[in-house]
C-alpha cells in the first residue's frame, strides 16, 4: 500500500519534526505508518490529518507541524482546517523569538569590570557585608559570590493538604482495607484500627518577574535566583514581563545556570524596556492563569512597581489574581532603601490585593523570603502566622504616611482552600 518512497518520507518527516522540538519518537512514527494503512495516503488532506492525529500531542506544536508538513510534502501550509478566527490570544502560532540582547552580552565576561573587594578583610565580616549589600551596588565578583550563596538557600514552599489519602499512625479516617487485611491475618479479629489522612503537598509557586529598565540592576541576579528555585522546587512556573509577558519555565529547567539563562534571554524580547504591569497581568490571566494557578498556588511578583500604564486596570487585574491565588507576595527591591514608600501609582494600586510586601535587594531578604514561603498560613488571606516579623523600614514608612495596605473586605469567595 505504501510505496518505498513514502516509507522513506515518513522517517524523514518524523526526524524533521523531532529536530524542530516536537516529541516524536519511534512509537509515534510507527503509529503514523500504521495509520497510513487505514487511509488513502495519496489524498493530501487525509495524509495531513492522519499525520496530525498520530504525531502531534500538544496544541502549541500545531503551527510548527503545519509549516513542516507543507515544507516536506509540498503545497501550501494546510493551516488549522476550518477553524474560525479568534482573539489573538488564542493563536498558538504567535510565538515571539526575536533574538536579544545587549543585556546578556554583559554577562559573557563577568571580569570586565573592576573588582574592588578589599582583599585582606576578614572572611566572616566580608560574608556579613555581602548579606546586606544591595544587589544594585554589587560588583560582578560580589554578584558571583552572592550567586554561590544563593545556591545553598533552602526554599521549601509551605504544604497544603491534598485530597489524596495516605497511611497515618493514629489520626484521620479509618483505613478499612487495612483493617480487613489485618483482621484476616489474625483469625478474623479486629485488634487495631488503621487510619488514613490527607497527603501533604508543596504548594505550586508562580513567579512573575519584572525585567524592565528600572529593574535592570536586579534582573540578572534574580534570574539566577529563580533558576535555583526552579531546580529545587518542581512545581515552579516562571514568567518575566516588561511590556509583554514571556514564559521562561522550560528554559529555567535546564540544569546549567549559564545555558539556562542564555536560553531564557533568547525568549525574552523586552529586557530593559518599559513596564506595563497591568497589561502583562492581563495576558497572564488570559493565557496561563487557568493552567498554573490551581491547587493553592503562591504567587510571587517581583517588581519595583514602575508602570507606564494606568493604575485602574492594574488594580482590576490584581483583584482577579487575588481571587485565584492562595497568596500573593510582592517583592520590591526598592523596599530595601531607607525612606522608600510606594508612591509609584501602580504599586499603590496593587498593594490592596497583596498579602505580603517584602524587599528583595540583598541576600538577607532572600533568606527572609525563603522563611516566609515555608510558613504561609493554611487559610487564604490570613495575616502572617507564627513569629512576629519585623516590619521592614519601607513598610513602616508606608504606614506612617498612611498609604492604605489592608486587604479588601473579604468576599465570600475569599475564605478557605480552593
Amino acid at each position, binding site marked *: 500500500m505504501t510505496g518505498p518512497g513514502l516509507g522513506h518520507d515518513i522517517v524523514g518527516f518524523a526526524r524533521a519534526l523531532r529536530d524542530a522540538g516536537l516529541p516524536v519518537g519511534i512509537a509515534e512514527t510507527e503509529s503514523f505508518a500504521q495509520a497510513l494503512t487505514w487511509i488513502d495516503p495519496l489524498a493530501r488532506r*487525509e495524509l495531513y490529518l492522519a499525520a496530525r492525529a498520530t504525531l502531534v500531542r500538544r*496544541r502549541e506544536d500545531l503551527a510548527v507541524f503545519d509549516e513542516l508538513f507543507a515544507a516536506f510534502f509540498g503545497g501550501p501550509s494546510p493551516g488549522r482546517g476550518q477553524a474560525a478566527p479568534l482573539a489573538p490570544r488564542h493563536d498558538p502560532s504567535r510565538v515571539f523569538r526575536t533574538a536579544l540582547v545587549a543585556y546578556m552580552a554583559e554577562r559573557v565576561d563577568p571580569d570586565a569590570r573592576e573588582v574592588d573587594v578589599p582583599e585582606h578583610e576578614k572572611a566572616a565580616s566580608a560574608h556579613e557585608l555581602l548579606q546586606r549589600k544591595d544587589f544594585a551596588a554589587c560588583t560582578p565578583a560580589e554578584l558571583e559570590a552572592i550567586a554561590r550563596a544563593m545556591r545553598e538557600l533552602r526554599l521549601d514552599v509551605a504544604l497544603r493538604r491534598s485530597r489524596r489519602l495516605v497511611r497515618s499512625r493514629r489520626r484521620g479516617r479509618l483505613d478499612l482495607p487495612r483493617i480487613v487485611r489485618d483482621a484476616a491475618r489474625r483469625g478474623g479479629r479486629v485488634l487495631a484500627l488503621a487510619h488514613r489522612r490527607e497527603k501533604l503537598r508543596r504548594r505550586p509557586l508562580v513567579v512573575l518577574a519584572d525585567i524592565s529598565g528600572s529593574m535592570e540592576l536586579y534582573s540578572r541576579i534574580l534570574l539566577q535566583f529563580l533558576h535555583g528555585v526552579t531546580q529545587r522546587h518542581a512545581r515552579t512556573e516562571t514568567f518575566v514581563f516588561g511590556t509583554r509577558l514571556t514564559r521562561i519555565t522550560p528554559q529555567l529547567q535546564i540544569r546549567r545556570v549559564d545555558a539556562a539563562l542564555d536560553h531564557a534571554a533568547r525568549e525574552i524580547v523586552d529586557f530593559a524596556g518599559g513596564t506595563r504591569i497591568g497589561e502583562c497581568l492581563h495576558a497572564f490571566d488570559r493565557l496561563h492563569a487557568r493552567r498554573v494557578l490551581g491547587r493553592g498556588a503562591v504567587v510571587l511578583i517581583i517588581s519595583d512597581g514602575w508602570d507606564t500604564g494606568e493604575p485602574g486596570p492594574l488594580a482590576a487585574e490584581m483583584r482577579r489574581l487575588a481571587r485565584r491565588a492562595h497568596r500573593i507576595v510582592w517583592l520590591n527591591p526598592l523596599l530595601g532603601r531607607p525612606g522608600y514608600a510606594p508612591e509609584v501609582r501602580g504599586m499603590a494600586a496593587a498593594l490592596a490585593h497583596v498579602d505580603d510586601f517584602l524587599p528583595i535587594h540583598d541576600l538577607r531578604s532572600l533568606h527572609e523570603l525563603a522563611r516566609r514561603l515555608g510558613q504561609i498560613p493554611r487559610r487564604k488571606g490570613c495575616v502572617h502566622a507564627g513569629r512576629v516579623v519585623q516590619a521592614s523600614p519601607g513598610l513602616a514608612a508606608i504606614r506612617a504616611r498612611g498609604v492604605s495596605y489592608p486587604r479588601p473586605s473579604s468576599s465570600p469567595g475569599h475564605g478557605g482552600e480552593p
Partner: protein
Amino acid sequence: MTDRPLAATGPRIAAGLDARAASPQVLTTELAARGYIVDDALAMTVFLALRMQRPVFLEGAPGVGKTLLASVLAEVFETRLIRLSCYEGLDLAQAAYEWNYPRQLLALQAHGAAAGAPVDDLYREAFLMRRPLLQAIDASAERAPVLLIDEIDRADEEFESFLLELLGEFQITIPELGTLVARHRPIVVLTSNRTRDVHDALKRRCLYHWIDYPSFATELEIVRRKVPALSEQLRRRVVAFVQRLRREDLSKLPGAAETVDWAEALSHVTSAGAAALEPATVDATLGLLLKYHDDIERVRGAMTVSLLAESA
C-alpha cells in the same frame, strides 16, 4: 491466579464497529445523524483511534463538545457509556474497584467464631465492587463500551500513572485476584480542560486532538439541529454574533454549548417572524453566553450594539 472467570482472552474489536467506522466520512455521517457535527480533523482522529484501538485525548476550551463526543459515540455503536469524572485525590477505590469491607468484616466475624482464618475466601468476586474502570473491561459485556475519563486534568499525577496500565494494556491487576484483561477493548475518550499539563507518557498512548471553536458553517449546523424552532435568518444572526464575540478579549469565550443554550433561549423570547436581533434582547440574555460578571459588564450596552452591527 489463573483461570479466573473475569479474565479472558485477548482483546477483540466489537462486531458492529467495522461498518460504522469504515472511513472517516462514514463516521462523520453517523455522528451527524445523532446531532454531533465534526470537522474532518476530528473525524480522522476518532476514525484512526477506533481502527488502531487507541484512546482519544481531547483538549479544548469548555463547551466545545469534548464530553458530548463520548456519549454520541456510545449511541453510534449502540453500547454502554461508562463515565469516570476525575477530581483531585481520585484513587483506585473509586476509579477501578474496591472490596466490600463491611461484608468482609462480617464474613470474618462469622468464620472467626467457627474455625481458623478464612483469608483466601475474603477476596472473592462476591466481595468485589466494580467501579467505572473495571466495568469498562468487564469480560461478560456483550460488546465494547465507551469509556469516558472526563477532565483528567483534575486528577493528580498518581492517578495518571495508574491509568497507564489500563490504557496501554487494557487490563487491571488486582493483587488478590490476578490480572483482568478486557475481552473487548473499550472505546476510550479522555478529556482535559487544560487546568494543568497532563503527563506526556499518558498522552503518548492516545491520539491527541485539540478541539477548536467551531467554524461558522459547523456552528450553524449545530444550532440548526439542536434548536430547530429558531428561524434560519435568526440562526445566522445568532451564530455570526457569537463568532464575532469570540474575537473579543474576554475571560471565557462562549463555546458551542453556550451558543445552543442562547439560541434556545432566544427561540422562547423572540416572536416567530423576527429576523433581526434586538440589542435589548441580547443584553437581557447575555448570561447564557458569558459566565463572568466582568465579561458581561464589558459587552453589555455599546459593545452589543457594535458587535451586532459588525456581524449583521
